């Protein structure tokens, strides 16, 4: 191992990377675009009040104060529907499933104590319908209580495990850092290694004193540097544009080093193992895409069905993102240590295989 040769190769490779416009785009612009888009989609405040159509078939004072009570929760925006309209048809024609109908005789029934039902329309699979139904129940209970002349005794105080609550962006930053840890080295190395093989550039290099381990090491170094740069860019955007809560600790560094090492080796393995550039690209995508979506990049793994969660646990990227979440968001260092341990073992295996199967020359 000769460090001068590694650095010379690093120099030529990084210049080439920066000179190709695609390289600059993926290194610097793409991570920022990613975090801006996903940050804006999921963290740009609440999605606004839910539109709920209300038909008040009862003209009494009680029914109007019931509507006012519904309206006073900022979660719903009530849209009055004229009594002449067929309510179901009206909902359908407005592509909505959320609605409340107050039947005629609501006011007199309230006064006399005769049971009567308010109709809540909704779609059982939609979260907005559950919210509408919940709020309607709450207001009805309030009215029943008032009618009986009682007052609330039991209440709920809402608390969070941390002093401030976690926001989506707090998971998104580590997830997207993981995304670039995976994609930049994987796509590049699959492409480069199959192309260099086809163009006999590896053969050409094998005729110099550069060894294949030196060549691989310089690529790993390059992608570590690139990962650290995109880490800072993405974290800065996350913190300053979306107010992400991120702990900067030295614990982050091992993940930013071992991640690129793992995926440079994996890309190398796929690229040199394939016969043609085209088949390498196909295999590369087959390996990359499931990992890209199932490892907790864009949403926490815990939101996925159980069988996908267990699948996630065999994907190397899961441990990078889980580890980054543990150190950047939760500050749970013992859990991070387990992630790191898994990564060290996986990297050692994949790096070993890459060096073993990556051929400078042929028999």
């Amino acid at each position, binding site marked *: 191992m000769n460090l001068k*040769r590694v650095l*010379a190769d690093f*120099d030529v*490779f990084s210049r*080439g990377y920066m000179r190709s416009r695609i390289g600059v785009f993926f290194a610097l612009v793409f991570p920022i675009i990613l975090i801006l888009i996903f940050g804006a989609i999921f963290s740009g405040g609440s999605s606004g009040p839910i539109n709920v159509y209300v038909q008040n078939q009862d003209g009494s004072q009680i029914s109007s104060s019931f509507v006012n009570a519904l309206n006073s929760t900022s979660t719903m925006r009530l849209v009055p529907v004229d009594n002449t309209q067929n309510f179901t048809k009206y909902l359908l024609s407005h592509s909505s499933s959320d609605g409340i109908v107050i039947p005629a005789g609501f006011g007199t029934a309230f006064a006399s104590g005769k049971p009567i039902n308010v109709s809540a329309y909704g779609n059982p699979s939609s979260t907005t319908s559950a919210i509408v139904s919940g709020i309607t129940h709450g207001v009805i209970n309030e009215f029943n209580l008032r009618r009986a002349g009682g007052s609330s005794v039991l209440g709920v105080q809402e608390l969070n495990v941390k002093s401030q609550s976690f926001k989506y962006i707090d998971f998104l930053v580590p997830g997207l850092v993981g995304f670039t840890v995976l994609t930049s080295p994987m796509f590049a190395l699959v492409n480069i290694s199959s192309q260099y093989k086809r163009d*006999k550039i590896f053969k*050409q290099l094998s005729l110099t004193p550069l060894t294949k381990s030196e060549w691989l090491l310089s690529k790993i170094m390059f992608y570590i540097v690139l990962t650290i740069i995109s880490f800072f860019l993405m974290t800065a955007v996350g913190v300053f544009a979306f107010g992400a809560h991120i702990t900067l600790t030295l614990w982050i560094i091992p993940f930013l080093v071992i991640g690129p090492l793992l995926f440079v080796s994996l890309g190398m393995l796929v690229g040199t193992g394939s016969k043609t550039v085209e088949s390498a690209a196909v295999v590369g995508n087959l390996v990359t895409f499931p990992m890209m979506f199932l490892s907790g990049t864009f949403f926490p793994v815990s939101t996925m069905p159980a069988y996908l969660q267990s699948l996630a646990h065999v994907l190397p990227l899961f441990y990078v993102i889980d580890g980054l979440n543990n150190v950047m968001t939760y500050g749970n260092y013992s859990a991070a240590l387990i992630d790191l341990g898994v990564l060290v073992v996986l990297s050692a295996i994949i790096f070993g295989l890459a060096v073993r199967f990556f051929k400078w*020359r*042929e028999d």
Partner: protein
Amino acid sequence: MSEGRKPTRSGNELNPTPNSGVAIGVTSLHKAYGDLKAVDGISFTVKVGEVFSLLGPNGAGKTTTIEILEGLRQKDQGGVEVLGVDPWTKGYELHKKIGVIPQGFKFFEYPTPREAIKYYAVLFGVKADVEDILRKVLLEDSADVYFTRLSGGQKQKVGLALSLVNDPELLFLDEPTTGLDPQARRAVWDVIRELKKEGRTVLLTTHYLEEAEELADRVAIMHKGKIITSGTPQEIIEAHSSGERLQIHGTERLANYLKEHTKLRVEFDGENLVTVYLQRKEDVLTAIRAIEESGLEWSDLRTKRDSLEDIFVKLVGEPLEALGQGA
């Protein structure tokens, strides 16, 4: 490299092998890919300081042979010695002393020729005179252009430049001019002549006969994994040539007249070409006298000798260009 050569190594480098005077020794070399015998028992020797050319169509086994000699491929059987060592087991040491342009040289897209030469200098751990190398391969004008933007000929010259960085004793040039325009080809020839002048040994493969005739001290013609003949271009021509002959445009009647009235060997090609084979000096006078006596129409009289090209066609049965362009 009379003036440009750097004192990077001790002075015996032009004659480094114990087996003095021999740069490459190959004895009954075999290499098969499955059922295909790519190299089928060839033997040859390249002397220190000579330009030796392996000549043959694509698929003849030239590149396989050269890659075995460079230590990039493992032989199946036979003896191979390059600069006194086995290239497969001692490749790493050997590579410091040889220069190589692989067939269809390609490189990273974005270094400039100047950067590429510097990169190689660091890899080899030598202090290369970048300007001198650029001048030698006629790349000074494009020294700072990205590799990917260079023309085919210029790219090939970058390959040539890189093969010179480690000041090699022995160069392997695998089809260095394939696909180049005539001007670029001649420029590469000049570089090769210069390398020979500096005392370097060159193993050149080509499928251009003209190139081998122009540059090589000795030639081996390869076909289907075998060497079908070898020697200096002159020796090969003498050994396989049909000798000097007279060609006249004329009719079949003229051919028959000559056959009847002289003892010379005469052939007619079925259209309009009469060929008279000449064994002795006076044969030419006999033939011309007989032509004149016949009173028949004739024109375009000339004498012809075989070129390497003709020999190749005769030995292989097909012209070089007609044999496929596949690998």
